[in-house]
């Protein structure tokens, strides 16, 4: 199947090339979305946790992640084989469906990158950067890759044995990152001053900019998952826009009723919640379904983000409240709103399909959430024991930007300028030293 003699379709290939670039842009977008929500003292660290995921996940994906996720099934639909480790056997002539295999692999890679980056929001302001550098590749291989195989790989058990639907990643991306974020914030514990100090977002324009980039990239994420430039991609594209809009309106409606003010952060969060929920369902619901899915996610997630204060887990930037809850909403609603016109098979409860599809969706949600939570918790605990996952207390007080990266994001005022102490390249000083 990977080395078939078929030729790639030029239209499909052109669209997937563009879609891949769109999805990659989501990770810097996420960095801004998250970065604006933290305090000034750790914003660079927040940006870095996302940005560095691009490099880390790409390396492990090319080495072994891709083949384990999308190689031929080794049995029971659990994992792919190692035939394409290091992208062996794949070249410009390899074709997957109607697109080059190398392009398909890169498109899927961009999904793995943003999923890892999403987790960082749950442990903002307090993670040891070195531990994050180890966590991301290990997590990508042990958590993302198997779940991606179950849902999208050849013979994966969720798609082929269970029969649950997930068009663009409610299970591997949203639920996996949300459940993993919950596990990791439990391993690290709450930020110093959680529930006592005001931890206001320091830059809401940055959050809106990030949400905009995410939305823009999401068209590549969802409509690219159609794997072709065709009518399905167009329907998915429109569903993606619609659900982001009703998510935004749903969240603002709750805020107006509950808090008395519609907020910028609420608008950004609501659009993302709607987009999260339409991710699994965009290929199986009609436009009406998409509007309902987005609205449901916007309303539910706006309540879910306050659970952490009652239950005492510091999911700092609401990866659980938005991605886990939104992902579950979208994946389950397929069981109600799936339409034959979109799925060419499965039908939801409201379209005469009974409860069977909803049951399949629920099993997939439970299995993926439990697997991601358990394995991530294990990785987190092990890393914490081996090298420490939590930054030192004084680093957290001072801020990770200065203590870990030796930088500060903003130069406030006119009096803060020092004089250069040393340069990493000092030719004259070295010359003087080496002279006898």
């Amino acid at each position: 199947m990977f080395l078939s003699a078929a030729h790639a379709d030029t239209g499909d290939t052109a669209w997937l090339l563009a879609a891949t670039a769109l999805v990659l842009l989501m990770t810097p977008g996420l960095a801004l979305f998250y970065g604006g929500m933290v305090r000034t003292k750790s914003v660079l660290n927040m940006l870095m946790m996302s940005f560095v995921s691009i490099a880390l996940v790409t390396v492990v994906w090319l080495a072994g992640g891709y083949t384990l996720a999308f190689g031929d099934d080794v049995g029971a639909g659990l994992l792919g084989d190692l035939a394409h480790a290091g992208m062996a056997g794949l070249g410009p002539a390899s074709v997957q469906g109607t697109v080059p295999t190398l392009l398909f692999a890169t498109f899927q890679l961009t999904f793995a990158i943003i999923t890892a980056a999403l987790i960082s929001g749950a442990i903002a302001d307090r993670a040891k950067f070195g531990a994050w550098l180890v966590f991301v590749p290990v997590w990508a291989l042990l958590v993302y890759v198997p779940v991606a195989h179950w849902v999208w790989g050849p013979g994966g058990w969720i798609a082929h044995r269970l029969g649950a639907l997930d068009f663009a990643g409610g299970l591997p991306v949203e639920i996996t990152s949300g459940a993993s974020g919950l596990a990791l914030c439990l391993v690290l514990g709450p930020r110093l001053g959680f529930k006592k100090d005001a931890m206001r977002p320091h830059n809401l324009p940055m959050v809106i900019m990030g949400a905009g980039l995410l939305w823009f990239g999401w068209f590549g994420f969802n409509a690219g998952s159609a794997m072709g430039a065709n009518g399905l991609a167009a329907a998915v594209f429109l569903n993606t826009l619609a659900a982001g809009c009703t998510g935004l309106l749903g969240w603002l409606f709750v805020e107006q009723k509950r808090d008395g003010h519609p907020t910028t952060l609420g608008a950004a969060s609501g659009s993302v919640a709607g987009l999260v929920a339409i991710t699994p369902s965009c290929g199986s619901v009609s436009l009406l379904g998409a509007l309902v899915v987005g609205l449901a996610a916007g309303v539910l997630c706006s309540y879910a983000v306050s659970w952490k204060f009652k239950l005492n887990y510091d999911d700092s930037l609401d990866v659980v409240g938005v991605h886990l809850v939104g992902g579950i909403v979208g994946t389950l609603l397929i069981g109600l709103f799936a339409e034959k016109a979109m799925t060419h098979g499965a039908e939801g409860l409201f379209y005469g399909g009974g409860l069977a599809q909803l049951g399949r969706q629920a099993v997939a949600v439970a299995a993926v959430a439990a697997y991601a939570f358990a394995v991530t918790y294990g990785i987190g605990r092990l890393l914490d024991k081996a090298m420490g996952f939590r930054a030192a207390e004084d680093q957290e007080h001072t801020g990770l930007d200065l203590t870990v990266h030796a930088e500060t994001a903003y130069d406030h005022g006119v009096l803060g300028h020092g004089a250069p102490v040393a340069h990493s390249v000092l030719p004259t000083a070295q010359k003087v030293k080496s002279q006898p």
Partner: protein
Amino acid sequence: MKLITAIVKPYRLDAVKTALQELGVHGLTVTEASGYGRQHGHTEVYRGAEYRVDLVPKARIEVVVEDADTEPVIEAIVKAAQTGKIGDGKVWAVPVETVVRVRTGERGPDAL
């Protein structure tokens, strides 16, 4: 000489500056300040979580004047800064022993 310090709402700063210029005050110093009096902050809401913000942003204006000008300057500041609402700020004056103009070394009222 007197040092007059005024803490006012930031958006009244321009009105205060204009009033002082009309009065012939040649120079002043403005700093961004934060604090609270009876106004005692406000609340902000982020993703449903309410935050109490105690310290309210204010503008701090400092101007040194001759004794005889103290009352008119204070009056001008108060008139320009007043909105009648809570949080309008405070103005006070304290005696100043010496003033030196750095450029010329002039001292006392000549340095103003």
